[in-house]
């Protein structure tokens, strides 16, 4: 199927009458996912958003429930957001990240109703990346600029129009309802050419990385690798697969609410015990945990690398820590088995 770019605002306006629609919106020098009231607000030519779409499903700060406590008991109210949503213009890396987070919020024992309800009620319309940024390395971590994982529809930008690839039944329904025209062979060829021309120039060789991480927990490489890191946590807040959070109460007397806020394994207080003991005392242990979590623990648990190669951590680290270099350094290091 195919849709002309000039018909997109109209397409979005129709969706807005039925769904909460989120799309990249221009802020000063960057774009962010926001709920839009008009299809014309979507900024679709500006590369990936500064923050991933993760927060639409797992907000930075979110009320879990409110309560009212009396002598007789407690009245709890836990409204779960079940509004139908469309995310328009999400990039393949960010769409994939949600399929990774699904493993966490729907684990072998527990389901997170807040995240999962939003996931189940959301349609994901992605746009492929014709010109991947210099910091992108999705193809090194089992992704790609036109990957369809986690998407319902994928749009391929062929200049004046998007060629629409249907990925799921949900996607098909939306596309049919919108009345997208059938793509001519010429359009399909154009889309194929765009895909071929879009090259992710940066390649990180991670062959053997997992095998190395399996045995190098006590290796001296970790003494060096973290040295530059300030422990500011910026990378964790920008990461589409990071999911750590804290739970706190906000209350006055007997009325209040329990709130969860993003947290970060880069912070010392994250693991500090009540006794004063801390299993991850320094930046070394904390940085090691971040790498291990994404490239070993997550793989052991869910058979997937918890990094989608979006490059946000590389772009935004105040001291230019580059995860691509870190991974190469680890891979090239001599593993030591002893402790």
């Amino acid at each position, binding site marked *: 199927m195919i849709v002309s770019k000039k018909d997109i605002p109209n397409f979005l306006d129709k969706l807005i009458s039925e769904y909460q629609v989120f799309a990249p919106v221009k802020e000063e020098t960057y774009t962010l996912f926001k709920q839009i009231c008009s299809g014309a607000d979507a900024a679709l030519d500006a590369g990936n958003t500064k923050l991933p779409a993760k927060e639409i499903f797992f907000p930075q700060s979110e009320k879990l*429930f409110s309560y009212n406590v009396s002598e007789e008991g407690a009245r709890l109210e836990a409204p779960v957001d079940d509004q139908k949503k469309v995310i328009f213009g999400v990039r393949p890396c960010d769409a994939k990240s949600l399929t990774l987070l699904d493993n966490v919020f729907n684990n072998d024992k527990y389901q997170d*109703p807040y995240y999962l309800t939003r996931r189940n009620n959301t349609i994901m319309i992605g746009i492929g990346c014709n010109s991947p940024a210099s910091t992108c390395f999705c193809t090194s971590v089992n992704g790609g600029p036109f990957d369809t994982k986690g998407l319902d529809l994928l749009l391929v930008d062929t200049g004046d129009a998007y060629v629409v690839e249907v990925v799921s039944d949900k996607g098909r329904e939306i596309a049919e309802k919108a009345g997208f025209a059938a793509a001519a062979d010429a359009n399909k060829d154009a889309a194929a050419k765009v895909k071929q021309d879009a090259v992710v120039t940066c390649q990180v060789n991670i062959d053997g990385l997992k095998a190395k991480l399996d045995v190098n927990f006590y290796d001296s490489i970790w003494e060096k690798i973290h040295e530059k890191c300030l422990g500011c946590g910026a990378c964790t807040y920008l990461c589409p697969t990071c999911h750590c959070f804290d739970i706190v109460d906000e209350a006055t007397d007997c009325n209040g609410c329990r709130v969860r806020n993003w947290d970060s*394994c880069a912070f010392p207080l994250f*693991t500090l015990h*009540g*006794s004063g003991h801390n*299993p991850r005392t320094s930046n070394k242990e904390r940085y090691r945990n971040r790498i291990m979590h994404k490239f*070993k623990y997550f793989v052991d648990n869910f058979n997937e690398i918890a990094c989608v190669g979006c490059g946000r951590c590389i772009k935004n680290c105040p001291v230019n820590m580059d995860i691509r270099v870190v991974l190469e350094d680890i891979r090239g290091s001599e593993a030591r088995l002893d402790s």
Partner: protein
Amino acid sequence: MKNPYLPLPMKLVKNFTETEDKLIHTFTLQYLNEEDEKSFSYMPGQFAELCVFGKGEAPFGIASSPTEPGFLKFSVAKVGVVSTALHLMEEGTIVGVRGPLGNYYPVEEFKGKNVVIIGGGFAFTTLRSLATYMLHPERRGDYGDITVIYGARNPGLLLYKEELAAWEQSPDINLVTTIDRPVDGWNGRVGFIPAVTEEVAPSAENAYAIICGPPVMIKFTMPVLEKLGFTPKTTIMSLENRMKCGIGMCGRCNVGGKYVCKDGPVFTRAQLNQLPNEY
């Protein structure tokens, strides 16, 4: 979809100062309705998030045993926001309990075996649950000898003194209590747990050892247990990493790829040997 974040409201019916230094209180909580008790079905070794509305929640091992119906018990050391709020709480106040969480001591595997329970300091809470569970008249026959070695710095710091006195008299359990330094009127043993364990020398034959306590105690008792013949598979520990969600999502309590809250807190030594030492 069951919401795992919602606490069960319960009434604090007893706020008991457990130790001489007043730093540990034992809280007895009662269910507000019968259905709540049915929905809270737990086993020894599990924990729960206890919440003081307005202050927040924190994880504590369940000190009562499922063989004691009608209430839950927690023994809490005063270290921070939630624990202090609990200590100051008046009886009759409503608190929240979220759980039961985590796995439990493998009581099925203990059947037909001798069980050696070793506890130090205030980490005796879920061990009390375990001992009480196995001592229940309907279950006592399932297990062989039950030995409890329990130590504290001084007699005033031992938890559950009345119960200890009763166990002292009971033919069903072999209780050994110890304190660090001699005190007038104390007729238990004197010495640190590792040394006392070596003296008592419980047989590892057809037996499991369960050990909870401060890291130093664990560190020095481990070699003793090894010498006695307890293997990594028959040595069981319970970890206490810092936790929030208790359900394997907030990312805080991991040891390697395992979440202590969801995959533990009870692990065999053999399982822990496969994991990095981040606990």
